[in-house]
């Protein structure tokens, strides 16, 4: 897997969203919301850039007049996430215990 730092994914909540979705095929919106302990609006706001980047598929299904939203990490999103994790690993390997900030990462 080629390491590639991804700014869309690196934001804390988005990283947790992609990480959680990478562990399953798909998950309910509510499951991710509960996992992250955030509100619906916060999760929606964080999912939007991921969706726009083509990393997450948002599927709405109507069941008994209730809309249920499912989130799925796309193939593109899965690749980006793996590449991002690989990039983080390389950074930690190169810098040891040193704290690596976003600014430092962008300079590399």
């Amino acid at each position, binding site marked *: 897997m080629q390491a590639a730092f991804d700014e869309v994914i690196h934001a804390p909540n988005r990283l947790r969203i992609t990480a959680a979705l990478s562990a399953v095929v798909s998950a309910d919106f509510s499951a991710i919301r509960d996992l992250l302990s955030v509100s619906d609006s916060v999760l929606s706001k964080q999912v939007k850039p991921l969706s726009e980047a083509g990393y997450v598929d948002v599927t709405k299904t109507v069941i008994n007049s209730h809309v249920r939203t499912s989130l799925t990490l796309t193939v593109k999103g899965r690749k980006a996430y793996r590449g991002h994790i690989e990039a983080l690993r390389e950074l930690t390997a190169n810098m040891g215990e040193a704290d690596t*900030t976003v600014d430092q990462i962008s300079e590399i």
Partner: protein
Amino acid sequence: MLNEEQIPVSANDALMSARTAEDAMRQRARSMRPLIATNGLASGAITVAVLLPEPWKFVVGVGAFLAIVTSVWLFQRSGSRRLIAQPGQHVAGRLVLVAVMFMFPVAGLLIGTYTDNVWAVVVLALALPVIMLAIPWWWERRLPSTVAGK
């Protein structure tokens, strides 16, 4: 892409966060396994217990038929992929599991009834818990391998 969360995040913290989220989600997806196994075992045992009294065969048969039809209908409406992540949290998921639990004893009942081979019924009913263990295992097998947790 503008990052609304422009706070410094160390690579170590990010890795740790990703690993925690992956583990939590994976654990949640797997958390149904003991319940499924328990249901399978209980269902198998109850089915075996009620096999021989003749009136129950009809009740079980009708119940299984209704469960299968209903679950298939709901399964199609909800989409199968959701069940992989949360098989027990969704009505369709529960009903599909119930349908699977019933299908094998019903097959056993039919075989046992028409061939007078009661052991076929018992074996099929007992095979049910094994199947109920195998299905979650298969689901887990298809879950992507850990990325952050290597």
